[in-house]
């Protein structure tokens, strides 16, 4: 017996869960949404943290997830960018952002991934999203329906299938959608440190020759580190014994926040840029990392994924309220047009930033320091960057503007 649902979402990460919640809240109890992901069987153990841009926070507020996260969210009060060599005694500051996008609304917050995922999961259950703890092994689109085959249990017939199944999306491969992109030969070391003194909500990004080293403030005097090195060096550092790791850490972090202690597991994630050649196929839409993976230099991966979710939720809701076929080619085309431009802009911008900054050349250093210095002295440019970082530029979906869907 084939079960029925309106939208079937393969993948229960940030974007998949946020889309499910937004659709249920907007379209009511008669609109059935299913999310399938084996990772939903147990609580998440993701040790990473993410920057939540202002627009993303507005969306989380709209879908009633933010209240469960707020107590664990650290406001980024300001951000300092330096450009230096590892052995420079003083790291000159080239750029400071004290970013408010609206009076009293900061441009970003730091939240641990596990906290956000748990809050999304809880809200999805409260909104009666059907949750399957099994992977999807295949699908077939025919006529007005897509039939999805979960590994365990009966097939499910849906009007639209959403592939939110990550960078190595199986559904994207099954749909025959190729990707373009490249590896940077860099990896990001991610870990959490506890420090003695208050960080005061300040984020610090050192552009070191090997790549950016970002110190992102977390609640309770902790910081999340995103530390980019060439891949072999990253693997060497991650594999060091604790005191060796600590030494490398201190060399980069400095002692401005007092004594340091690594408190989380440390992992290295290879970095690359991947963009799917198409974001849609027959009865299928790609969402989040399945559609694109960008360099984490500007902390935009999660925000891009939630922007996809906001745009797709709006496209589906508008179509459903007109009685249109929500999985039809017109509707999917609208989503694709909306998201591809934004993704390419962000992908190329982060790629350019990385190429500019992951470089020890003195000439490039001069260019970027002049550039940053200019940005620092130009309030208008700074405002543009803050709005870009906050996710408030371009054709902004209603949820990201803090409006009801």
């Amino acid at each position, binding site marked *: 017996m084939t079960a029925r649902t309106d939208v079937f979402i393969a993948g229960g990460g940030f974007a998949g869960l946020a889309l499910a919640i937004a659709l249920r809240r907007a*379209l009511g109890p008669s609109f059935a949404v299913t999310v399938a992901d084996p990772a939903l069987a147990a609580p998440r153990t993701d040790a990473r943290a993410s920057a939540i841009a202002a627009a993303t926070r507005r969306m989380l507020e709209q879908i009633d997830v933010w209240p469960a996260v707020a107590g664990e969210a650290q406001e980024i009060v300001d951000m300092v960018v330096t450009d230096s060599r590892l052995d420079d005694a003083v790291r000159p500051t080239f750029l400071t952002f004290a970013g408010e996008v609206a009076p009293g609304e900061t441009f970003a917050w730091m939240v641990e991934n596990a906290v956000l995922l748990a809050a999304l999961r809880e809200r999805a259950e409260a909104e009666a999203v059907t949750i399957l703890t099994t992977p999807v092994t295949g699908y077939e689109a025919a*006529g007005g329906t897509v039939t999805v085959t979960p590994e365990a249990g009966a097939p499910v017939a849906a009007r639209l299938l959403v592939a939110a199944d990550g960078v190595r999306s199986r559904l994207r491969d099954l749909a025959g959608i190729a990707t373009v992109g490249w590896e940077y030969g860099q990896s990001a070391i991610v870990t959490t440190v506890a420090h003695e003194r208050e960080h005061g909500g300040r984020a610090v990004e050192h552009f070191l020759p090997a790549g950016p080293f970002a110190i992102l403030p977390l609640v309770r005097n902790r910081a999340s580190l995103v530390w980019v090195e060439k891949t072999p060096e990253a693997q060497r550092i991650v594999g060091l014994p604790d005191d060796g790791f600590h030494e490398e850490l201190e060399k980069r972090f400095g002692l401005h926040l007092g004594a340091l202690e690594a408190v989380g597991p440390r992992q290295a994630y290879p970095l690359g840029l991947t963009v799917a050649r198409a974001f849609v196929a027959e009865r299928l839409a790609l969402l989040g990392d399945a559609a694109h993976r960008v360099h984490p230099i500007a902390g935009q991966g999660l925000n891009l994924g939630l922007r996809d979710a906001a745009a797709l939720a709006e496209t589906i809701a508008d179509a459903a*309220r*007109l*009685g249109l076929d929500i999985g039809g*080619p*017109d509707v999917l085309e609208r989503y694709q047009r909306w998201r591809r431009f934004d993704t390419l802009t962000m992908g190329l911008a982060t790629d350019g930033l990385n190429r500019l900054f992951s470089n020890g050349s003195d000439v490039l250093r001069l260019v970027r320091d002049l550039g940053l210095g200019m940005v620092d002295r130009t309030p208008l440019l700074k405002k543009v960057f803050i709005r870009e970082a906050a996710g408030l530029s371009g054709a902004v979906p209603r949820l990201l503007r803090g409006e009801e869907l």
Partner: protein
Amino acid sequence: MSIDLNRASTVDQAEIARFSAIAETWWDPRGKMAALHKFNPVRVGWVRDQACRRFGRDTKRIDTLAGLRILDIGCGGGILSEPLARLGAEMVGADPATTNIEVAKLHAEKSGLAIDYRNTTAEDLAEAGEKFDVVLAMEVVEHVADVPLFVSICAGMVKPGGLMIAATLNRTLKSFAMAIVGAEYVLRWLPIGTHQWDKFVTPAELETAMSEAGLVVSAESGVLYNPLADRWGLGRDMDVNYMMAADKPD
């Protein structure tokens, strides 16, 4: 729109295959009806909003037309009837062309929608005493022989407290340039000969016909094409495409 004189009561397999092929192209948003597919969401939205206003419904609900009996005159392949049925309306689609009705039936079945398609005319439905909450005459007024007579027949089928909505083309120099020269000859959106400009209807003529049929015009809007965005939208300019809603008093 062509009138198909083949009214055979039994349809053979070859005919069904032919209808299926037409249905495929008819419903292909990039096929020969592409212009209609782009135009459709705008008129569906306006019809929904007018019905919600008249019957006190919430436009955000996906079953917002539940319980309303709606007639779609000149339903073609069902491109307007299907969305309204999905929104909960009890749809009757009427078209004098057999091909259109067969295409519409096949597609509704594929979409899993129950729509009562009939190979008939407004006159025959009125004669049979059919009544509706909403009567739609979208892009048909400009094809009929006698506009006031046609409007009075439609109005007669509207229940007291109900609504009639018509969409058509205005008879202006601009509509001649855009709908005939532009859409038919230059852009090739529509087959040459689809429209006869002298049969286009001005808003004043339509309003007079509706008033004489006992209706009160309650809303009107232009439908405008933005060539840069390749999108249709609503606007105040009623020189070419426009829609008009009229209420039947309780």
